[in-house]
């Protein structure tokens, strides 16, 4: 490229520095008693891998924001949305029942709150993601949570990934939350492969431009999900 006069080169201090668009991801994780032992250990490893994978991606680490909500004895917000560099990876402990409805409602409230904060701060954002993982059936009323989720999905305001764990999970319940995407059952306790796939998917979103269609890695799903033939 031809050299030009110095006074015609725009100084970066005369530009603006808009914040990176954010993709808020809420992990809503079953930590009921039935997840004790190997399941919760593997889930902990998977969540840790997810955080590390996002942190190590040059673009996603400034874009992805993760919140972790668990449902077991009570519904707990273990990790609030924020800068991933300052977040600690939460440690999940299994106990109690399965208040799934309440957990999903808390997650939806958190996502709405985060979007409001983005709007007030002039920060652009991508469609929020909600990842719902469970190994059983809910022990509370899920009707309101289902209604809200389905409405948001039909308005294209939310993407949900409902994932079933083990043989006792009620996949029909998960399907109620997800009118567009069939819930998938995890292959064994393959949390690490799932969270690796999830982090790559989040990275794709964080690099997308207006008008792009996000094409999830369908082949990659085979590594962690049981797919019916």
């Amino acid at each position: 490229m031809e050299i030009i006069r110095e006074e015609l080169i725009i100084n970066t201090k005369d530009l603006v520095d808009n914040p990176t668009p954010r993709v808020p991801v809420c992990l809503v994780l079953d930590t009921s008693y039935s997840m004790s032992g190997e399941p919760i250990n593997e889930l902990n490893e998977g969540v840790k891998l997810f955080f590390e994978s996002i942190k190590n991606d040059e673009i996603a680490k400034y874009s992805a924001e993760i919140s972790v909500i668990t449902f077991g004895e009570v519904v707990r917000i273990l990790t609030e949305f924020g800068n991933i560099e300052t977040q600690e990876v939460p440690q999940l402990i299994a106990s109690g029942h399965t208040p799934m409805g309440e957990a999903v409602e808390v997650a939806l409230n958190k996502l709405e709150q985060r979007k409001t904060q983005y709007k007030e701060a002039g920060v652009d954002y991508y469609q929020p993601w909600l990842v719902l993982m469970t190994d059983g059936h809910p022990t509370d009323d899920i009707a309101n949570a289902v209604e809200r989720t389905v409405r948001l999905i039909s308005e294209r305001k939310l993407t949900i990934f409902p994932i079933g764990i083990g043989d006792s999970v009620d996949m029909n319940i998960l399907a109620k939350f997800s009118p567009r995407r069939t819930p998938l059952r995890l292959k064994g306790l393959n949390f690490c492969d799932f969270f690796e796939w999830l982090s790559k998917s989040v990275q794709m979103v964080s690099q997308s431009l207006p008008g792009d269609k996000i094409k999830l890695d369908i082949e990659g799903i085979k590594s962690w999900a049981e797919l019916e033939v």
Partner: protein
Amino acid sequence: MGRVRSVICRIVGATAQGRFHVKNGLPCQDKISHYSKGRVHCIALADGAGFSKYSQIGAKSVTRFLSRYIVRNFYKLKDKKENHLKNIFHRIIMQILYSQAEEVDINVKFLASTLLCIAFDNKDYLMLHIGDGLIGVFLKEDDKIIPISLPDNDEFANTTYFTTSENFTNNLRLDKGDVKKFKGFILMSDGVSESLFDKKNKKLAPAVKNIMKWFSRYNLYDIKKALDYNLNKVFKEKSLDDCSIIIAEIKNGH
């Protein structure tokens, strides 16, 4: 009878292929065009939709043919009411795109793009804008530069509206007015507005004023070189997207 004032207008623009497009083997999908006839001038910019590898064809067609249409019909168009104008533009744009789609044998939806366009003579201007990107105006008073049409991304960072969108007329923004207080217009794609538009405070960066100052000191050849250089070396570093800009400087003369 007094003499009619003509408009002396200098127009210059540039485009640069974004890093995302380079990495994915896509051409630059931003296109700019301008057309002048008699006292009427028109500048246009379009950013091809990311979901289509052919959208730069649509962007090129719509900027080229719409700018010609508007200039040739400016005096008929400028006094029409908003709803009527929206329907006219929708019809003309779809004619352009369907004709192009037939020529290249693809579905018209793959020719989608945003569109920014402004036409003017010595008295009036007519502006249209669908999607993201930004239109700014340089005021004679105090040398100010203000945005007159902001990016429209719907809710999410990777969504916007296009020429082929279902609710085209609802999402098309039109504006008309008096051009006498202005000394120029600037159209920029979102790849450039990322660096030149403060989204929180809705203000343009100091660099925009500096760019306008070039017109009083340099010829079009040097300004063009400067725009090419800055799009490729400065703006591209701050955005993954294609970058494009087109500027019209207006000087009323005899």
